[in-house]
């Protein structure tokens, strides 16, 4: 496979995953903001959603008054000035897919093209009902993409797209947890204190893990248990350990086919074995924020190593 094609496919995986994550973030935040009492609380909720995707105020900065449901939904979903908006991600995914089209099944191509067409040149999310309808469409399109992907030939193209998704997922979950934890932590309170039940439910919802949480912990959402789920439960595909295991496996799969293993494999295995030796208590002792920050950096290192290993242009 051409190196350029592999890079295109890997980034399709990342962009499609990022689009889906942002969709879920909007959905969960909509729910949270409609539950929160008063305009300030709602605005803070939306600020935190912006912070997750790296567009919130810097720590210590006061929330801007513009963080309304409408504005944030527009920024997250449709604004092309935000390079990570859903529309921007879908547009880049589609550009990559057009360029690597002969490495895709026609179903995968159509799923991506459909997702892109459905957002189209839309610039306004509309009211809450319309935004929810948009969210439903976007989610259905993500399912369509994943369904088409699942039926693809198991060759390098398939593994590279999955690899992109897995790398992106590790990044997204770490960000989500870090920002929410930081923003939701009441002043002067120790990590692990009592936090709002709805906030944690919203986090679980963003990673589609509400029921998973109940299944594992038989408890109302507790911060350290939510963190445990998102970090260490390999059964949850969006957990850090889950996606890190997937990266190891996918790299091995590609290596087995191409006879090419290297730095990316080594880093991915190292991260995975370190995660396996850590638990949530240790993380809280050494600091959750530091742990997540390192995790995001490590993920970025693996991303760079993948680019070098397969000579992405």
């Amino acid at each position, binding site marked *: 496979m*051409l190196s350029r094609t592999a890079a295109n496919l890997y980034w399709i995986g990342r962009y499609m995953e990022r689009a889906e994550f942002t969709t879920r973030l909007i959905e969960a935040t909509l729910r949270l903001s409609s539950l929160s009492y008063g305009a300030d609380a709602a605005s803070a909720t939306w600020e935190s959603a912006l912070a997750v995707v790296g567009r919130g105020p810097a720590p210590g900065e006061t929330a801007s008054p513009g963080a309304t449901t409408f504005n944030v939904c527009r920024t997250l979903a449709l604004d092309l000035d935000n390079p990570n908006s859903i529309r921007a991600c879908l547009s880049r995914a589609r550009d990559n897919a057009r360029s690597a089209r002969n490495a895709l099944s026609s179903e995968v191509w159509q799923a991506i093209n459909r997702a892109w067409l459905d957002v189209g040149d839309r610039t306004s999310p509309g009211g809450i009902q319309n935004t929810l309808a948009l969210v439903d469409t976007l989610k259905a399109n993500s399912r369509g993409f994943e369904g088409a992907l699942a039926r693809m030939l198991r060759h390098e193209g398939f593994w590279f797209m999955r690899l992109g998704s897995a790398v992106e997922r590790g990044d997204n979950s770490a960000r989500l947890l870090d920002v929410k934890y930081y923003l939701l932590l009441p002043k002067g309170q120790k990590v692990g204190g009592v936090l709002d039940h709805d906030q944690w439910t919203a986090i679980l919802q963003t990673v589609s893990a509400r029921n998973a949480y109940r299944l594992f912990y038989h408890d109302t959402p507790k911060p350290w248990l939510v963190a445990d789920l998102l970090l260490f439960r390999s059964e949850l595909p969006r957990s850090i350990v889950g996606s890190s295991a997937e990266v190891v496996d996918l790299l091995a799969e590609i290596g087995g086919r191409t006879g090419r293993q290297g730095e990316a494999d080594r880093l991915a295995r190292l991260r995975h074995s370190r995660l396996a030796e850590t638990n949530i208590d240790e993380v809280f002792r050494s600091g959750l924020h530091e742990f997540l920050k390192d995790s995001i950096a490590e993920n970025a290192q693996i991303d760079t190593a993948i680019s070098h290993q397969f000579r992405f242009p």
Partner: protein
Amino acid sequence: MAARKAFDELWGQGSGETARPGFEQLGDWLQNTPVAELARRQATAEAAFRSLGITFSVYGDEQAGERIIPFDIIPRLFTAAEWDKLSLGLEQRVRALNAFVADVYGPRHILKDKVVPEDVILGNPQFCIPANGAVPPHGIYTHICGIDIVRTGADDFFVLEDNARTPSGVSYMLENREAMLRLCPELFAQLAVKPIDTYPDLLRDMLYSVAPRGSQEPVCVLLTPGHYNSAFYEHSFLADSMGIELVEGRDLEVADDMVYMRTIEGPVRVDVIYRRIDDAFLDPLVFNPNSGLGVPGLMAAYRAGNVTIVNAPGTGIADDKAVYSFMPEIVRYYMGEEARLPNVETFRCRDPEALRYTLDHLEQLVVKLVDGSGGYGMLVGPTASKQEIADFRAALIAEPQRYIAQPTLALSTVPTLTDAGVAPRHVDFRPFILSGAERVTIVPGGLTRVALEKGSLVVNSSQGGGTKDSLIIAAPDKADKEEQHALPYSR
């Protein structure tokens, strides 16, 4: 000139009630299918094209972005006899074109014998000096030719243009057929239509056949300028249906006069490049140094005989419009017989008498730039404004050698679905001819382009033309439909 009613492919010169012999079934189908039903099916097809991303980009119109080429649901038919006649003419013409290009970049007999004036070739911008003296593997130059044919009467076919560089449109031929099979199955049940879906296989076989000698399992790639190119859809479609890599210039590198592609497993040697970029962008070391589309060193690899370039560099000389006017002489010279498919009468404005005639009859002529394409830089006299005619007159006087003129032909029409119901619209036809090491093959079909505006003669997709499926009907006794084997289900 416009007084005579154009020949209609379905109804002939008749009233629109009796189809030409051999076309009765299509006539019945058209009369029995309500316009609303045709429109519904056509809308379905266009929605499918949009969803599949079967699009092209329009140059100079950035607002437009990607468009689908309008698709017309009413097909155009050829009888077996018409097709056989056409194929013989096409094969003859392509063999002559190949012999001509080989001669021009080789011994130049045709120039020495003064059949074609030397300056028409050697002073031509399409004459590719770096290709001079290079003999491509197996001696084939125009591997893929798209020859534009127009028709003015039952037996009157003319060649309008030879596209011998990087002809496009074959993907629309194939996709139009797919759409028709799905939307009008009843029509195919009645007609013994010759299949065209073997085209990608024939194309791949051709590419393999022209690999440099010594390539055991030749590696073929399709070289595209990238996904912003107007024909990118076609590039990816063809690479995909042949199962070969679609590469851009930056995916290739040359070392020791051999071409390699950059893959995740390391460099892989490339034997055959089906290029869809023009000569001028092939190799920045030889041609345009500012272009990043090509591959540095590619021409050296080509000249060393280590890679086949399809079509070979320099074949543009064969589709230059000034050279076109000499095609009857060229066919006679190399084939020893008259051209089976005549040219449209052409005035070479370089020649003072032809220039004078052209200037005197601008309102009746079509004037074209010899190196123009896609309907750009042409004057259609009968529909042009006074200003346009005056502009062309000045341009002609200033640089007559850049122009040819042709009479406006009464192009044949085909019934077409329009806003006002089914109405005749002018068409042309582009079949695709493949020349491999062993044989010339022509898939029974081609791209019919249709001018959607009433009375318009401009069929180019870049000028708003549409396309139709083109059905070649097998002779009745030769209609060999696949034998059906019914296998019982086990319980």
